[in-house]
């Protein structure tokens, strides 16, 4: 068959093919270039963290370190100073863990059960509650931050672990409720009817039927909350109190408010250490992370 096509047609086909190949190459070049540019900030942070201060002063940011020198990492973890406190960034890490664990568990629990109540037991006013809650998703913290300080002081939890956890639950409510509400709405009504006939009540249906049916949704919720809460800065800065400062706040104190000689290698090691937990969550859970973005795109 191919041999019967006339030479001009073949020439046209060949030039088309060449163009198609050129376009493919251009696509790969563009994407590779973009990927390289996106990696540059991470690359220079890693390179800097392994250098000695002499290397940093005498070379440029893209120079490779002479050796894998972990000194800066050790110092960042347990020796860097914020003011007079020279325990490195590790206390911030543990503070963040202490904030993270109860905040994630409780915000997902509150959001999922509220979403369930709104989706499955559609009482009058359920949509109004949802709409009112949505406002919280768009509200900049700054608009209400001062009155919240007053409210938490009144409750006696301002500047405490309980205070910052409470706020993470409160600010997690809009997104978590929306997420689970939209998920539970899609569950067939017959299933719930059948469960009710079998005598299952409000909590039974939630804990024994719907939650076990929703592992994917729970994973997405955990990823959203873990990255969101770990990366929080403003709430931790204002509400956590000196003793519970999260890692992001402590990182900023170490890097920005440092006195004396600036140790760029230590700063960069501390920065990477702070970025690592959410980065690992992202790398391990890629697909779910993207799903979280898509379903959480109301909040951002």
């Amino acid at each position, binding site marked *: 068959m191919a041999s019967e096509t006339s030479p001009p047609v073949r020439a046209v086909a060949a030039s088309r093919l060449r163009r198609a190949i050129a376009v493919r190459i251009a696509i790969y070049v563009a994407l590779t270039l973009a990927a390289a540019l996106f990696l540059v900030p991470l690359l220079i942070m890693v390179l800097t963290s392994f250098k000695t201060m002499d290397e940093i002063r005498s070379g440029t940011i893209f120079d490779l370190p002479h050796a894998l020198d972990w000194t800066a990492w050790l110092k960042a973890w347990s020796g860097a100073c914020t003011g007079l406190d020279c325990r490195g960034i590790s206390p911030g890490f543990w503070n963040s863990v202490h904030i993270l664990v109860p905040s994630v568990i409780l915000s997902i629990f509150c959001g999922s059960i509220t979403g369930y109540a709104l989706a499955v037991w559609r009482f009058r006013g359920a949509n109004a509650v949802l709409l009112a809650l949505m406002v919280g998703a768009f509200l900049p913290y700054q608009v209400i931050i001062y009155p919240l300080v007053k409210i938490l002081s009144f409750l006696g939890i301002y500047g405490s672990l309980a205070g910052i956890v409470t706020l993470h639950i409160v600010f997690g409510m809009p997104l978590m409720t929306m997420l689970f509400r939209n998920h539970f709405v899609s569950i067939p009504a017959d299933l719930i009817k059948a469960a009710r006939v079998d005598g299952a009540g409000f909590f039974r249906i939630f804990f024994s039927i719907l939650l076990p049916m929703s592992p994917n949704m729970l994973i997405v919720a955990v990823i959203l909350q873990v990255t969101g809460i770990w990366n929080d800065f403003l709430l931790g800065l204002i509400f956590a109190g000196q003793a519970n400062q999260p890692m992001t706040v402590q990182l900023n104190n170490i890097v920005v408010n440092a006195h004396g000689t600036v140790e760029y290698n230590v700063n960069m090691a501390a920065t990477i250490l*702070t970025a690592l937990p959410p980065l690992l969550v992202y790398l391990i859970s890629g697909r779910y992370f993207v799903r979280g973005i898509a379903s959480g795109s109301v909040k951002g």
Partner: protein
Amino acid sequence: MKAALLKNATIARLVVLPTIVVIIVCFYAPILWSAYISFTPSGMFPNYHFAGLMQYDRLLATDRWHVAFRNMLIFGVLFVSIAISLGSLLAILIDQNIKAEAVFRTILLYPLSMSFIVTGLAWQWFLNPTMGLQHFVQDLGWAGFRFDWLVRRNLSIYTIVIAAVWHSSGLVMAITLAGLRGIDPDIWRATRVEGIPRWRAYLHIMLPMLRPVMVTNVVLLAINVVKSYDLVVAMTQGGPGYSSDLPGKFVVDMAFQRGNIGQASAAAMAMLATVFIAVMPYLYLQMKRSG
């Protein structure tokens, strides 16, 4: 059966009740409180005497506020338009049946997993005039190369745009890619039958079809612009001077450093109004969709 049903609905109401209380106490009451305080002469402490527009007059007479607000507009327009264009372009490139798609996607989206503090510190280091990019290029032999925006009064805000684009373009890419993948294959088939070039199909057919997705993108990014605080704190601390200040930082500084709740509240109300304007297209779309 009937009794049990009633009971369940009652339980549902009781379960939602705390949420309603929280919404009122933590969202709406504070908004109203801030709004009222913005009409009082409050300074270090709340003062509940009504004073009209005094705080707003003072805000408008404050140069730092004008700088902050103008920066927000510059930052907003540049960041949103660049991130949307770049993110959409990357989404289209990734949509071309390429090999190692997962690798490219992972690399383009990883900055989003990082906090704005980390983002700011990374870019502060990269753009540091004496140690970073400028020094590197000068060291290559181009001695006259200058890229010291970080420490230039009239240019520092643009470094924040660069860092924010790096952080959030992947978000646009992911959302837009999901939109592109959701387009009916029949439409693609139709464009091929009609002989429409692929790039024109994207530009004139697919992207316009994705308008709701684009609106979501714009609103998401715009809200981040208004909220923005961490990034500028980590990168420039609002400096040099207050040249890269943003409203989100202005409010926090006024409330917690300067002890001026009145000014903080007036500025907060301006932020609220801006968010409202930014969210309008989204709400409009939602309302149109639900009839």
